[in-house]
């Protein structure tokens, strides 16, 4: 049946489309299975009166983006760099990170200096 290359091609297309369907099915099943966890998270959010996802703990405005005011950048974590698109594609220079880290430790724990 698959002696022609075009048959093979169309079978591959059908297989690809099926794969996409399978993805949607898997997604639907996972959503159903995860419903109880979503419910649990929702409950935790309600009970603890949380306002944000804990995704990025590097700075105040990344940990609690919805609570951040307009002036928070530069004020939070010693390693925070900036709030703007460049921050998403540009890393902080390593020396800056190290210095800032040392400085922070030095400020918070003078004994470590020895």
């Amino acid at each position, binding site marked *: 049946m698959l002696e*022609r*290359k*075009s048959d*093979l*091609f169309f079978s*591959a*297309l059908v*297989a*690809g489309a099926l*794969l*996409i369907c399978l*993805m*949607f099915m*898997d*997604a639907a099943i*996972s*959503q159903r299975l995860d419903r109880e*966890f*979503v419910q*649990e*998270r*929702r*409950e*935790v*959010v309600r009970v*603890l*009166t*949380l*306002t*944000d*996802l*804990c*995704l*990025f*703990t*590097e700075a105040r405005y*990344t*940990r609690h*983006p*919805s*609570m951040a*005011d*307009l*002036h*928070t950048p530069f*004020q*939070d*974590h010693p*390693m*925070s760099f900036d709030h703007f*698109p460049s921050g*998403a*594609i540009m890393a*902080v220079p390593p020396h800056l*990170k190290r210095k800032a*880290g040392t400085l*922070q*430790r030095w400020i*918070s724990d003078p004994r*470590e200096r020895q």
Partner: protein
Amino acid sequence: MGAIEKQRNILDFTLSSLGRRKGKNIALVVVYTFVIFLLASVLFFTHSLKKEAFLILQDAPEMTVQRLLAGRQDLIPTHYIDTIRQIRGVQSVAPRLWGYYYDAMSGANYTLMVNAELNDRAGEIIIGNGVSMRSMSGKRNQALRRNDIIPFKTYDGSVLTLKVRGLLPFASELVTADLILVSEADFRKLFSIANDQATDLVLNVRNAKELSTIAAKITQIHPDTRPILREEILRTYDAVFDWRGGVIFMVLSGVFFAFIILAWDKATGLSAEEKREIGILKAIGWETSDILLMKFWEGSAVSMAAFFMGIFLAYLHIFLASSILFEPVLKGWSVLYPSFRLTPYISVYHIATLFFLTVIPYTVVTIVPSWRSATIDPDSVMRM
């Protein structure tokens, strides 16, 4: 019937033809698949995260009231509670006490938050899963457990030791990874916050429709406050991920365009051999449109293969392999981050968008430049 058979015949030849430069074409498909894989991964990831945020933040406080001082958020006096409670439609007002704690030992930032349930259990804390993994007690590579003692440095440099009472549910890590719940007394002791001050206020209203009126009234009574509505929280998450996804998408689009230019270059720089073949096909009776049809199938075959593989791999990557390639971006500079498995939310709209943004341009780019070669005079073949 004849038309379909013609398409299949030409497709047969196209595939045979592609099979001849196997190495080159496979390399092309691999690179192309990777580009689509990256684009799809970004889309899947941001979409699912947005959806997740939207679902679980449904029960976030209806309204949060902050106080601003010199452009920064500042502690809010608790007597604001009484005046706000007076406003018609306000059901309840409660103070929240929370803040950040930087642990020099692990280099991590934690979110400290007061929970009323601990109020008669001063000296005890409940921690999120991420906190337990980041040992603060000096015991390296060992998760914190119940009854472990953790030293905290207070505002004046003295040490306050607190005992782990328990862990927050594992499933809630996406919202609680860095949380440390403490009693009100310990919190005030740690940061020296007076009893008549709170971090912010959360309130419930009787009728959600009145939220904005109530917010307006609050800023009228207390001009130094800033109310944040739940609706705004939900919108924030849409924007944050659109923004983040957008930046990455822009960079990846650059990659994609570079790829398209490559394809264009390949198609315009048809080799002498390919041009000769087009001449032969024309001389033996193929029309210009048949040649273009062949090029159409060539572009479709390559891009469809890459499209399906790219999409599928992206799905596996994001939802089964925990977005492993995005880890550097996601972790960023944070020492502490949640480990979570995203629930897959995918939309037909995204798949279609990807299709129209990748398969169509690539196919067009393979057809258009071959137009010139397709119109060569067939008699040139007589002299080859």
